[in-house]
């Protein structure tokens, strides 16, 4: 994305705001314009912050923007309402299937040393 297009999606990126079909109730994150199941319109929907890790892997072949600090973990997380989402993991060395996590705000990347800082959701193990 660009500095400006990133801004368009910031609420979804900061707060796990997805979409829910007004007709059949399917939930999606990232948010969609139309329902993938029935094609109807979708309304904004706040996903829960907590969930558990279903699957995870370590990204070692690093892409631009995510190549400053070495390998990192991505996962499929099942949130408390049953929605499954992709997410970056943080504050964990060895993720495990079933690990309880919660969504927090972290730095994703910046546009160079002096450019805009892009923040977004990452999942970290629940504390306590």
């Amino acid at each position, binding site marked *: 994305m660009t500095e400006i297009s990133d801004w368009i999606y910031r609420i979804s990126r*900061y707060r796990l705001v997805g979409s829910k079909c007004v007709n059949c109730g399917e939930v999606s994150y990232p948010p969609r314009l139309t329902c993938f199941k029935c094609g109807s319109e979708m309304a904004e929907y706040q996903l829960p912050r907590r969930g558990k890790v279903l699957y995870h892997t370590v990204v070692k072949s690093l892409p631009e923007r995510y190549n400053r*600090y070495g390998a990192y973990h991505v996962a499929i997380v099942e949130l408390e309402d049953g929605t499954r989402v992709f997410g970056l993991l*943080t*504050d964990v060395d060895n993720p495990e299937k079933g690990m309880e996590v919660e969504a*927090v*705000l*972290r730095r*994703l990347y910046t546009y160079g040393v002096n450019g805009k800082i892009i923040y977004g959701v990452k999942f970290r193990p629940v*504390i306590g």
Partner: protein
Amino acid sequence: MKPGNDVGIYGYGAYIPRYFIENKLISSLWKRDAQPIQSKSFPNYDEDTITISFEAALRAIESSKAPREKIGAIFIGSESKPYAVKPSGTVLVDALGLPRNILSADYEFACKAGTEAMQTVFALVSSGMIEMGIAIGADTAQGRPGDELEYTAAAGGAAYIISRVDEGVLARLEASYSYVSDTPDFWRRSGEDYPRHLYRFTGEPAYFHHIMSSVKGLFEEYGYQPSDFTYAIFHQPNYKFPTRVAAKLGFTREQIKPGLVVPLVGNTYSGSSLLGLAATLDIAKPGDKILLASFGSGAGSDAMVFEVTDIIEERRMVPPVSKMISRMSPGDYSTYALYRDMLKR
């Protein structure tokens, strides 16, 4: 100072990053002996003052169930704000889903920027201009490699939701006293990566003089004495200073114990005394009286008195500071250098 209408703490939250580095790893790198504390926290590479403030504020909101729609201000005090121009609070407005009809600004007064922010929020709430406000003190302190302060410059923060007493507060503000003078013990010029300081000058003329002045000023104006307080929390740049100033002012070890987080966590700068306050509120009982005295280089001190109410039980932070400390995991100097962006590329 007393606000015209009574205000207090509606909710509180804190956050400490997961990583810590033992002082002995730092001293062994420089082949020196000093180890002023046991360990200090350091942030993950994806953390900064904004993300720390987010966690602290979210914890405060969720633990106290403060209604977001009543929040009319969010001020963050820090000496490591990610943008020189763009308040950290602006990101939190959208990241936390706060009302857009809100005040936001960044505060700077070295390590007392957080309590500075609190003083302003007390006044805004008391005046009726806003219903509730959030004041945060948070930092990812910049430790100059090889310098004395490297052992203690840590990361962390705490957030306080302030409201009028009639909203139901967990602790009422009784009084406060602020003291400022031009004492350049420690400063950072624009564009510099690391602050500078004047070593032993940061002691008597700075830390001790300003804290003792604000606390004595507070005591004289309102007739307090040390034995009135259940707990006292002082700014914690290391272990020696807060324990010594406590003794000088007539406080006991027991009074400062719960709020002393510096031995393991280090000095979280703008978060320091506020983190100590959070740790104290985690265990305080109704009726307890708490003294908080921050110190900010440059220099100044804010002294505040809080009285804990019955409501504390339903508003305690989840998880408490102790759980955040127990999740911490050790890192070596190379990880610390990588995560603190100290490596030249």
